[in-house]
């Protein structure tokens, strides 16, 4: 029971990260119909720029890597990094994807792979982030918000709710609620949904399609940046930008988007949690060596049974 609860809480934290990343994939796919392979590299950018800020900027403010800064510091860094990565997302869309607006989808996909390779290897250069792993300084104290005991006597097992997990869950939950509001309650969100439904008709209705697409990229990229920031909070050992771990993270998030029904914002969130639960419970109860295999097996299974995903329907609402 203790193990079960602990796994459940890890899965909830990881799941919210997958969901954040999956939102970016699903929004871009909903509008432009291609897998934005470079999306996972925005996560990397978010993670590494958090590291750069914590390692270079914070010591000048008097917080070296051993002292933990007050909580508001993290609350300031996060929006800054989101803004920065949103800008990078805008630039990528403007330079690499916009010239291909009328090109076949396969070409855009190949371009996306090109952009991804470019970002990965640019990030590995010495004057960027370098090609070796780093240790993220702690920005959050290692508090235990609550702990429960299961069992009695010798068999007592303690389950801890840590501050980090709670912050991850709360922050990404807030961001998802904001996105939900943006997409379904604002004029801009209506424009996004219109563009994803039918780009040409949306253009005829006076919607500035290019601007809406740019905005989608900015939105998706800043969510990815937030996921990167939260990811290094939980796992402080940051791998170099071209490491397989990052690509796998992005892949799993994409799988989450597909499982939830690609193009569907709520589906991406659902898919993120489903993936995380399968992965974490599979890793704990079967074998942690094959944790990536469970995710892909689930993907293939879902695609064969319900190719549109869990929440996808023929008349689905896509963003």
């Amino acid at each position, binding site marked *: 029971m203790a193990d079960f609860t602990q796994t459940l809480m890890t899965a909830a934290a990881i799941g919210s990260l997958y969901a954040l990343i999956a939102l970016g994939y699903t929004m871009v796919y909903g509008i432009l119909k*291609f*897998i934005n392979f470079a999306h996972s590299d925005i996560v990397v950018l978010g993670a590494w720029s958090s590291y750069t800020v914590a390692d270079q900027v914070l010591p000048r403010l008097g917080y070296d890597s051993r002292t933990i800064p007050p909580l508001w510091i993290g609350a300031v860094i996060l929006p800054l990094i989101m803004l920065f990565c949103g800008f990078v997302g805008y630039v990528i869309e403007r330079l*690499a994807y916009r*010239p*291909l607006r009328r*090109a*076949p*989808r*396969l*070409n*855009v*996909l*190949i*371009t996306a*792979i*090109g*952009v*991804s*390779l*470019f970002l*990965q*290897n*640019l990030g*590995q*250069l010495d004057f960027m982030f370098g*090609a070796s792993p780093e240790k993220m300084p702690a920005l959050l104290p290692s508090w235990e918000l609550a702990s429960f005991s299961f069992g009695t006597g010798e068999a007592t097992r303690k389950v801890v709710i840590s501050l980090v997990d709670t912050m991850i869950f709360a922050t990404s939950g807030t961001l998802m609620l904001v996105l939900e509001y943006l997409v379904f309650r604002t004029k801009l969100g209506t424009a996004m949904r219109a563009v994803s439904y039918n780009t040409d008709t949306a253009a005829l209705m006076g919607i500035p399609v290019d601007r809406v697409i740019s905005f989608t990229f900015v939105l998706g990229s800043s969510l990815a940046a937030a996921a990167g920031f939260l990811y290094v909070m939980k796992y402080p050992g940051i791998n170099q930008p*071209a490491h*397989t771990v990052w*690509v*796998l993270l992005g*892949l799993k998030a*994409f*799988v989450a988007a*597909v499982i939830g029904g690609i193009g569907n914002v709520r589906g991406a969130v659902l898919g993120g949690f489903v993936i995380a639960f399968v992965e974490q419970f599979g890793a704990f109860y079967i074998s942690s*060596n*094959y944790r*990536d*295999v469970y995710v*892909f097996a689930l*993907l*293939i299974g879902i*695609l*064969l049974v319900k*190719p549109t995903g869990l929440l996808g329907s023929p008349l689905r609402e896509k963003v």
Partner: protein
Amino acid sequence: MSVSHPMPAASPIAATPFRPTGPLMGVLPLAIGIVVAVLLHVILPGFVGPYYSRIVIDIGIAIILAVSLNIVNGMTGQFSIGHAGFMTVGGYTAGLITYYGSYFIWGTLGKHGVFLGTGEWLFAASCIVGGLVAAGAGYIVGLPSLRLRGDYLAIVTLGFGEILRVVLQQTGKVLDDGAAIRAAGWSQWLPPPVGGAIGFDGIPKYTNLFWVYTFVTITVVVAYRLKHSSLGRAMISVREDEIAAQAMGVNIARQKVLAFVMAAFFAGVAGGLFAHERGVIISPKDAGFQRSFDYVIMTVLGGRGSISGVTLAAIILTALPELLRDFEQYRLIVFALLLIVMMIVRPQGLFGIHEIWHFWRRRSR
């Protein structure tokens, strides 16, 4: 879209040179290729030394992989980014056969026999078996392509490579002497002991210029003949417009799976050559997407469907990094930029579906 190329026989006025027809079309280039392979094997190492000979071998392996990937990505218009996975399947299979097979046949591990001796024939056979096993894997991976559109398929193929990598990492350590092999029970053979994460060390290093370029010749001739056969045209029609192709009576599902199986077969053969190459220890890392991307870049730059274009791209993209060793960290940045610019400026690749000599002929008229 003009998929046809200038038909050589269409102009009876022009004095056409000797142009073999029928079965000779396939046999003659094959014979020439094998002669070239023998010459390369005999002459080249003496001239350029072992280092450059190895680069030439690398180029040959890259040509096999890029040209075979071109059958799926270029001709049939599917999008596979798991080609290195098939290569690794072939490599491990071939390595298993030569490594443990040598022990069971001759009672010793390691290289056996001279040039074109028994050991080399075992090696060639193991490459072909590796190709067949990879083709089986290609069949399994190709099946979802019937249900999935292009980009989902990309994810499935990518997932295949990654799963393969994880599974190979869980294998046991290589049995490195006769006693261990004799003592090994069934539980040690399943999964086969191929070294886990550190790679399959100790595979006898049979790969030489002769075998590499013989297989290169076979691959290129088969791909070229395929492209100009009814089968190849059916594949190209699937690429151009699936619905129109279906309306013309093309069995789309069959073409897609066939393309996958053929490409996987040659990738498996190349894997066999790679696993037996001097200085290479095939490891689970080779199944990952990074290597697959290399071959995707070659097919995209060379021209999707152009066999000579892809061959040229494979040569340049393999040789260039070797010559520019000092700029190793910039290699992929430059390639990635090339890929992006190419997609914007010339999306069909350098040569499109045409062969290099089509351009030459057009100019000479």
